[in-house]
């Protein structure tokens, strides 16, 4: 079973309220749901859609063809009808949107009229549409009504009732007017409420909070803002300070200050905001202060496509900042991984006292994934070398930048009872005072860069799926995990033996993990959401392997597995 429902309309029409009720209904009955959100950068109008994919096996990407299209406006009928599968059904309100069709699979339902009559308000259109869409899956109406109950409980019994009545009317209308049996049956299932439905942003935020995040500062910018908003919604419960900064420069400098003082702190932004943070990135490198920065990518350059997706900032984050200093870059591909990688980001930042960047993108951050479990035991907290009051028994001269084999010096936090510390953005001595000595300069550059060796060893292997050797390798990183995996499955089903090599821990590149000898024989095709094939170039440089082909997409939309499969067939 694999059904996709697209709800299209103008911004402000409540697309999300329909998709979220449908999604929740199925997740609670143990199905896997994936929602990708495609929206324009505007508050009202434009063409927008949510696409809800429902399956009994895990799904991590959008399907090419949809079975049900709910058109809340005329534009959706114009733009999205081609996405319908052969037997796909269009639901729309003919009078409401001024659209007529002779096609028996195009079912006009008076959404607005039902909403006003049964639900006592036109706002109820969404619940009518939800009921109608569910009827096409032949799933029990009761389950939708339960979700609506929970959703609107706080608004009072009348609101609940109006929504439920509207959904019922929509459901009944379809049952009575559909000529044949509902074509896309979702088998009945028990409510188990075990799976979770959450966005990539929420997974990132959860991972950060459970890893001991105490301070967040940020400046709103799509698609990073939902991270800030989610943390803000939990800040009071979990004693976290969330400070909305005046700009991204302030945000990262506050984060550096808080980390310096000893609280785990992070910020999140998109490429444009990260541009403003770059000077402070090298400040963290120079002062050896931990900092975790999430960069949720969107298409650039400049303002680009604010609400759309791209993996175009890898080169930028890899090279951002003046001078040489160590950093790590991680890029989760699915929520469970985001949880673990946020924990890892904070641990690496603390242990190596240097910035760690986590790359997301609009597709990953805004999409809803279904996960069986997020295991909080996957989270470890390692604060690195911090000397407590007991560790320094007598008052003494402490050296913040004392040399060591690993390049890591023990920190103390300001307020230590036995010592004070000096940190400086100028080149500095072991004590942290400004220096111009050539000898000390050389020592300090080497000390900082020495940390890169340790960091490299911490970087985990790529995911290889399926295991073993293959003649054809699809190489990807970050948010394309789900779609590449699906494409590989399809290729294998079609008799093309293919394998995914997916990187989520990108920098510093650890070549130990990759069986270069095996890959020399394989044809490597990079799949990336950018123009240059940024990771492919980095991979080639790091491994000496050549990437034979690149499947690249930079129109601001995520890949579908069908697209990848077709392009693979073209190039092999």
């Amino acid at each position, binding site marked *: 079973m694999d059904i996709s429902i697209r709800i299209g309309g103008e911004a402000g029409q409540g697309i999300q309220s329909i998709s979220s009720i449908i999604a929740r209904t199925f997740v609670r009955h143990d199905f896997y749901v994936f929602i990708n959100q495609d929206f324009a950068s505007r508050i009202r109008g434009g063409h927008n859609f949510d696409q809800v994919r429902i399956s009994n096996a895990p799904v991590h990407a959008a399907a090419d063809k949809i079975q049900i299209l709910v058109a809340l406006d005329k534009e959706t009928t114009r733009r999205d009808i081609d996405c319908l599968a052969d037997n796909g059904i269009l639901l729309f309100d003919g009078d409401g949107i001024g659209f007529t069709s002779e096609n028996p699979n195009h079912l006009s339902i008076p959404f607005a009229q039902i909403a006003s009559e049964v639900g006592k308000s036109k706002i109820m259109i969404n619940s009518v549409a939800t009921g109608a869409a569910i009827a096409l899956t032949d799933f029990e109406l009761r389950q939708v009504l339960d979700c609506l109950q929970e959703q609107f409980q706080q608004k009072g019994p009348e609101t609940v009732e109006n929504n439920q009545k509207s959904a019922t009317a929509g459901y009944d209308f379809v049952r009575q007017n559909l000529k044949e049996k509902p074509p896309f049956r979702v088998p009945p299932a028990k409510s188990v409420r075990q799976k979770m439905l959450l966005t990539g942003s929420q997974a990132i935020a959860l991972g950060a909070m*459970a890893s001991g995040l105490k301070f967040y500062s940020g400046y709103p910018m799509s698609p990073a803002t939902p991270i800030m908003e989610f943390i803000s919604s939990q800040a009071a419960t979990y004693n976290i300070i969330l400070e909305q900064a005046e700009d991204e420069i302030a945000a990262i400098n506050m984060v550096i200050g808080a980390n310096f003082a000893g609280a785990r702190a992070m910020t999140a932004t998109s490429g444009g905001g990260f541009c403003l943070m770059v000077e402070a990135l090298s400040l963290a490198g120079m002062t050896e202060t931990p900092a975790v920065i999430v960069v949720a990518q969107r298409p650039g350059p400049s303002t680009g496509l604010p609400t759309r997706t791209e993996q175009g900032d890898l080169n930028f984050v890899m090279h951002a900042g003046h001078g040489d200093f160590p950093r790590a870059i991680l890029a989760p591909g699915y929520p469970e991984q985001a949880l673990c990688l946020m924990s890892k980001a904070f641990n690496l930042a603390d242990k190596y006292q240097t910035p760690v960047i986590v790359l997301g993108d609009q597709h990953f951050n805004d999409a809803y994934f279904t996960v069986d479990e997020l295991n909080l035991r996957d989270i470890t907290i390692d604060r690195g070398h911090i000397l407590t009051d007991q560790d320094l028994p007598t008052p003494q001269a402490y050296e913040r930048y004392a040399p060591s084999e690993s390049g890591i010096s023990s920190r103390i936090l300001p307020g230590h009872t036995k010592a004070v510390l*000096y940190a400086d953005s100028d080149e500095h001595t072991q004590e942290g005072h400004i220096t111009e000595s050539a000898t000390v300069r050389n020592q300090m550059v080497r000390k900082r860069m020495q940390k890169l060796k340790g960091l490299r060893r911490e970087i985990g292997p790529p995911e290889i799926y399926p295991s073993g050797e293959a003649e054809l390798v699809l190489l990807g990183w970050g948010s394309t995990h789900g779609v590449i995996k699906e494409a590989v499955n399809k290729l294998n089903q079609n008799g093309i033996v293919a394998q995914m090599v997916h990187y989520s821990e990108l920098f510093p590149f650890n070549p130990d993990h990759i069986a270069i000898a095996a890959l020399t024989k394989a044809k490597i095709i990079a799949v990336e959401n950018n123009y240059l094939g940024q990771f492919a170039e980095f991979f080639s440089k790091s491994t000496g392997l050549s990437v034979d082909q690149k499947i690249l997409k930079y129109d601001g939309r995520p890949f579908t597995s069908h697209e990848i499969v077709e392009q693979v067939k073209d190039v092999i």
Partner: protein
Amino acid sequence: MVTLEDFHSDDPIAWCPGCGNFSILKALKKALVDIQQPPNELIIVSGIGQAPKTPHYLRCNCFNGLHGRTLPVATGIKLANHKLTVLAQGGDGDGYGEGGNHFLHAMRRNINITYLVHNNQVYGLTKGQASPTSEYGFVTKTTPRGARNPAFNPLLLAIACDCSFVARGFAGEIEHLAALIKKGIQHKGFALIDILQPCVSFNRVNTFKWYSDRVYKIDVNSQYDAADRINAFEKAQEWGDKIPIGVFYRIQRPTLEDQIPAIAEKPLVAQQTDPAVFSELLETFK
């Protein structure tokens, strides 16, 4: 007992002989001893310029960050550990030019930080270009025909932003300046102390003598009411033959830290996280 000796630093001072910064350092140390500030519980955050070198010349915790970015770092430190005494220190270019936006918002936040601006009306470290506070017509290498813009008035802006403590000191009045710094640190909320600081190398107009001839104290033998905002606006506009120094404006309003329940009991740095407590939150996604 905290003594002057406790603040002694061995780091050799890199300022020009005769620079106004020496007197400011002296006044700062005096204020710290007067209020019996333990060096370990003090952190000075500074930017880049001549003034921001100051914390190296004291024994205390120091974060010498980027040009213009003093206040956000100080804000992060204060919110992470509000038990610390946090001072921010920089020059006129650092604070009013490069860091202007942070200045506005730190005042709005009313975070409990004392901000010392060594205002020499010129860019010292970069060898003498015009600064936001350079007077109209001030000739430098970047303004060979004289500065075209009127000088920025930090006090006037601070009063307009309802900064809860607004003062001006003069490096030539060490006792008075020490008393201002002391009041600033003791004030609950954001305290701006703009300090007239002669730069003997690059400002040949606003010299020690020039300032000495003009400054007068508004808080000695006077009826000046620092709680009166209109009054403060008027006083802050005085500049020329007579230059007022002292506390121009002082009010009480809630600090940022006071409004955050997360740190009502203990500072963030003293709070540990157990990942397991988030299991409840995970349930809400089901």
